[in-house]
């Protein structure tokens, strides 16, 4: 009895064998057989207003810490934690030391903080990692969704199993593996033709994404399971190879799912602190959260710093804002991309 039995359920709905099956890709992918892009009739009149009010109320809750954060980043040092949403006194903390003592400006210039480098690192590592994991996870997931082969269920169970062991206990062994790789590569290693890969470099931050990730493989497998096999059969009959079938049919249909994976991973990488903390030594290589942490260490009250919370808050906003903007742009695309796709043909 294979997991394939799950796919065997007689579906009550239409849209499987119908010609309208080509529409609403994400819909089918997630189990529906969308034929109109899933556009529901919007609420009428009173209901609309009621729900809008409800949503607005919830939005306030969702927005509160953000507003607090932005407001804290615009306050002078003594007011940061004063629990007021609107600053009593405004101070711009984003570009350099806001309250330099004349003649002492250099003294409190934040030491060793190549913020632009950090931003650049976070951007390219995030983009690369997200792209790689989306592609690799899609490829692997497709195999589990489409092909029948021995060991399929066992392998899928193994993939899921990798999500079940807390990362804390594998952290050091993984680090040791990268350390071994460091010793083998670079100028002094036996594989000297390779550049220096391993600890103290940024490779450990994105190379694992070449191999897919259990979470996204699971996600994409669900999506692929929703694509009717007829589409693939049609292509196979036309003489298409497996990989080109994957590339020409499965991937385009899964585009919204790929974007979901891309956004989730980009966001996860952007805010990841642990991995850069352990692997990076040179501050020019740091990512934004790690850089922010060094500022926190240097300027927080306990660390012998001056307790310049307002600068820390400004740094936090700088870290968070790009993700907000990114999501605001992309979410429209993939949610409404379904409607667009649905209208086609």
């Amino acid at each position, binding site marked *: 009895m294979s997991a394939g039995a799950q796919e065997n359920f007689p579906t009550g*709905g239409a849209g499987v064998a119908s010609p309208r099956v080509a529409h609403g890709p994400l819909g089918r992918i997630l189990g529906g057989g969308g034929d109109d892009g899933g556009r529901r009739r919007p609420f009428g009149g009173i209901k609309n207003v009621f729900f809008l009010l409800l949503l607005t109320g919830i939005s306030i809750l969702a927005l509160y810490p953000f507003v607090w954060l932005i407001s804290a980043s615009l306050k002078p040092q003594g007011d940061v934690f004063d629990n007021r949403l609107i600053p009593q006194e405004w101070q711009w903390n984003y570009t350099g030391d806001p309250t330099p003592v004349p003649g002492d400006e250099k003294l409190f210039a934040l030491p060793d903080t190549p913020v632009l480098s950090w931003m650049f690192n976070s951007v390219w590592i995030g983009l690369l990692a997200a792209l790689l994991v989306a592609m690799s996870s899609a490829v692997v997931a497709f195999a589990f969704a489409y092909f029948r082969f021995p060991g399929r269920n066992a392998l899928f169970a193994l993939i899921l199993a990798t999500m079940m062991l807390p990362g804390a*206990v594998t952290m050091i062994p993984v680090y040791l593996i990268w350390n071994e790789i460091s010793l083998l590569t670079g100028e002094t290693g036996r594989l000297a033709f390779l550049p220096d890969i391993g600890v103290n470099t940024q490779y450990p931050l994105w190379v694992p994404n070449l191999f897919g990730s259990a979470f996204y493989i699971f996600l994409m497998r669900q999506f692929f399971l929703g694509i009717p096999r007829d589409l693939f059969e049609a292509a196979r009959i036309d003489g298409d190879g497996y990989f080109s079938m994957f590339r020409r049919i499965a991937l385009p249909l899964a585009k919204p799912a790929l974007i979901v994976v891309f956004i989730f991973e980009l966001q996860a990488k952007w805010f990841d602190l642990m991995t850069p903390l352990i692997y990076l030594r040179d501050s020019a290589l740091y990512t934004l959260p790690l850089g922010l942490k060094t500022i926190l260490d240097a300027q927080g009250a306990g660390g012998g710093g001056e307790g310049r919370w307002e600068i820390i808050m400004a740094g936090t906003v700088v870290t968070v804002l790009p993700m907000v903007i990114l999501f605001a742009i992309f979410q429209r695309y993939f949610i409404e991309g379904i409607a667009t796709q649905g209208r086609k043909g």
Partner: protein
Amino acid sequence: MASVASTETAGPLQGARRRLSGFRERETWTAYLFILPWVIGFLALTAGPMVASLYFSFTDYGVQQIAGFEETSRVGLENYRTLLEDPKIATSLKNTFVYTLMTVPAKMMVALGLAMILARIAFAAGFFRTVFYLPDITPPVAIGIMILVLFNGSFGVVNRALELVGIPGPYWTTDPSWIKPSLAIMSVWTVGGTMVIYLAALKAVPQHLYEAASMDGAGPWRRFFNVTLPMISPALFFTFIVLTIAGLQTFTEVYTAYFGQGSTGAESPDAALMNVVYLFRQAFEFFNMGFASAMAWLLFAIIMAITAIQFVVSRRFVFYQGGDKR
């Protein structure tokens, strides 16, 4: 597809022959090729460490051993025996289960509710979608402050609001009976990711199904149970599994709020001690790595069992539109 159909109509012998010849099929080898990336990564970066941590769970692995100043010596089942004896293990597991039981259904229901409303709002939908996703990307420092401010038992907004409707609010952040609910609420607050997945699933349910149901006289609840739920069941299934696994391993939020540098470090309420938090403490504060590894594998076994149960139970409820075998 056609070949599978013929399997069902042909005799069992033919099916058996198909399975046995699996290794010679081109399909099989192509499948293995597709999976190759994951396998390489697994063998290179995951398998070794997993086996290593299993090995360490049978040793006295600690700081001296890590640094190479002392040999790692095997201690047999001692770590596992301690697992049974340490009352904090039982406490942490209990806390983790209760927390997961609270948070997973709550998150799924709230996410689904929000998604359903958002799917039908005619105005400013994009804005709300972004806003509800914001909590997922709010840094812990801001969340920690928010908890202390909003959920303050005496002066917080939440309790003041409750007062308005005559309910005396509890001391969310200090009363042990209310700590887990407050953690669960914080978790539900970050519902954006789940909501986004459900939103996509909902948008894909074909309109005509609803119309057909209405024509048959089904009211909104019937439509919900008989059309919406089945059609989005793959998404529900996915989030059910993933949220449970995440809930059982919950660490960051709890640690930041009650155990880490965000708090004064002197409050460590037993009620908030989650399994992975205790694991982290054993590994990186007490440096009992071997014991921590044993804890990890215990949790692994538990999660594996629960996930397997979830798969079996969900079999009856999940419909995949595209994968039918007719």
